[in-house]
């Protein structure tokens, strides 16, 4: 028999859960409502045209979608190996006394406001990037990846600053995930004669879904980062493969143009950029869930496959 307070506790917490659903739904509905003018006018073309002309009232989001994805993927490519290296070192190899210091430093990196990263980017990172870009050999400059004049401000600076900002998030979560790997996993590996490297890779394999989760968390952070990126990316709504070219992101164009957007269509197009970012984040989060889920399933199948021959051989 259920006791009454037990029921009210369930209902109460359930209600809080519902609040979360309502908030997400409300954001989605409101973004859709406010951008109706732009959706009516441009339809699907909004997603695939490249012109952003507030004077003519002609709006397409493709350069911003491209800039957001490109900078985030680049940041992920740079940050993932470093973040995982930090996590592995702290959780597996680090001498006990050094550990709290390193953990503290990672947490400190995560706590720095993004405007500070942006200022550091302008005054420290960008001049370095410009120097590197200026000294690129001609053979490299012929490639589309390195074409164009060396501004310093551009995709490369943005990807680097994003990578630095993402590292503490990915490495903290990966570290916690590795900590959660049962000690028996490593002991079993050592018992089978594994070296330290092999034992660590066994632990990594055990924790792989959690590590993918950590990387996706970093990706989500990179997608939505605004201030630091807009301060170094050069803010030019032109699509380019070049790391040297100034480009733009969805979050940056929102932050830059929202306050002074003075026609209804302009404002509506900016809100639709917000909607596009919202939808893309939803899609990416769902995909990462799907990936985690399929990894967990194949792990179960593999486990089952291992059990069967073992049982047979025992028989």
């Amino acid at each position, binding site marked *: 028999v259920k006791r009454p307070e037990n029921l009210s506790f369930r209902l109460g917490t359930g209600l809080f859960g519902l609040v979360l659903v309502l908030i997400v739904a409300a954001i989605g509905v409101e973004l859709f409502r406010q951008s109706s003018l732009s959706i009516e006018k441009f339809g699907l073309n909004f997603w695939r045209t490249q012109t952003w002309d*507030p004077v003519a009232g002609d709006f397409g989001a493709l350069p911003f979608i491209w800039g957001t994805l490109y900078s985030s993927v680049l940041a992920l490519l740079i940050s993932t190996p470093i973040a995982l290296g930090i996590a592995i070192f702290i959780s597996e190899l680090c001498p006990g006394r050094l550990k709290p210091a390193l953990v503290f430093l990672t947490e400190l990196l995560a706590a720095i406001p993004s405007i500070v990263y942006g200022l550091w980017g*302008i005054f420290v990172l960008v001049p370095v990037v*410009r120097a590197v870009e200026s000294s690129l050999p001609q053979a490299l400059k012929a490639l589309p990846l390195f074409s164009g004049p060396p*501004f*310093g401000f551009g995709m490369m600076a943005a990807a680097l600053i994003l990578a630095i900002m993402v590292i503490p998030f990915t490495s903290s979560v990966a570290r916690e995930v590795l900590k959660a790997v049962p000690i028996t996993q490593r002991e079993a590996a050592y018992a089978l004669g594994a070296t330290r490297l092999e034992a660590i890779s066994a632990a990594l394999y055990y924790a792989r879904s959690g590590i993918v989760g950590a990387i996706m968390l970093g990706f989500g952070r990179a997608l939505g980062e605004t201030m630091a990126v807009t301060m170094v990316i050069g*803010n030019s709504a032109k699509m380019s493969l070049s790391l040297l070219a100034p480009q733009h992101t969805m979050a940056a164009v929102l932050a*830059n143009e929202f306050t*002074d957007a*003075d026609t209804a269509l302009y404002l509506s197009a900016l809100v639709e950029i917000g909607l596009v970012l919202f939808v893309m984040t939803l899609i990416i989060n769902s995909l990462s869930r799907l990936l985690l889920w399929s990894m967990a399933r194949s792990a179960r199948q593999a486990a089952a496959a291992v059990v069967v021959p073992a049982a047979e051989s025992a028989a």
Partner: protein
Amino acid sequence: MKTLNRIAIGAIVAVALVAGVAAQKVQIQGAGATFPNPIYQKWSAEYTKLHSNVEINYQSIGSGGGIRQITNQTVFFGASDGPMTNEQLVAAPGKILHFPTVLGADVPVYNLPGVSAELKFTGPLLADIFLGKVTKWNDAAIAKLNPGVSLPASDITIVHRADASGTTYIWVDYLAKVSPEWKMKVGVQTQVNWPTGVGGRGNEGVAGLVTQTPGSLGYVELVYALQNKIAYGSVQNMAGEFTRATVESVTAAAGAAAGKMPADFRVSITNAPGKGVYPISSFTWILLYENPKDKTLAKAMLDFMKWALTDGQKFAAGLGYAPLPADVVKLEMTALGKIKVS
């Protein structure tokens, strides 16, 4: 129960106290352009010293935001660096009046290592550079205006504002007046589809980009260039003189426009005619309803406006703004009479 009662009584007393204080104080809320923010804050502080019962709260959220908020009547007054369009005026629930408060200017800033001379520009040349037609510093068009200056053969890196802003509006409004091609291809707005260049966020972003990028050319507000001691070039006016932006040359631009000022003060004074005029100058406006709902606020605001347009003008030059010419102030004092305070 007793404690509950006590809390309730305490709350009632507290609310009554707060309400009592609020009743004595007149609070006027305003929002809009970032460009005049320093002087509006100064005026607010100085005016409260003179009239302790009036408090003016100004939020610098951008011209577009100011226009939106006054249209939605969430603030008592709005502020904008560009006049409202006819379309926007029609969309408002009541008649909105424009009042110029001070003047500002945009200046071309550049970074050319080894060049210490002050560069001279013409309007059409600036338009061609920003259109991406003149791409090298030693282009014949630049060299012709600056004889004796050894210009480098490097590329011109153009720096513009990344955020929509009144500063951009003034800059492109001028370019469109002097270059038919700019008017046709790019046009005039607080943000445009830039043919080329890198975008910096805010005046500080543009200044940062320019000071760090050798061979760059951008534009910032005069106030900003003065406060941060950034070198800037002179621009040729309609009389053919190469003029540097100063408090005097910007006020002169407004003086030139005063003669044919439209009754609603919605006038662009870029490329103004006359001697000693700096051509990339502009008014900044406060927006008020002709028939405001709250008459107490309207009365207080009207007194404040009269003070700001007369005594308040003396604070302008110290902050890098140009004060209004006397003719314009006179016209505005008459126009303020249209606001219905009873």
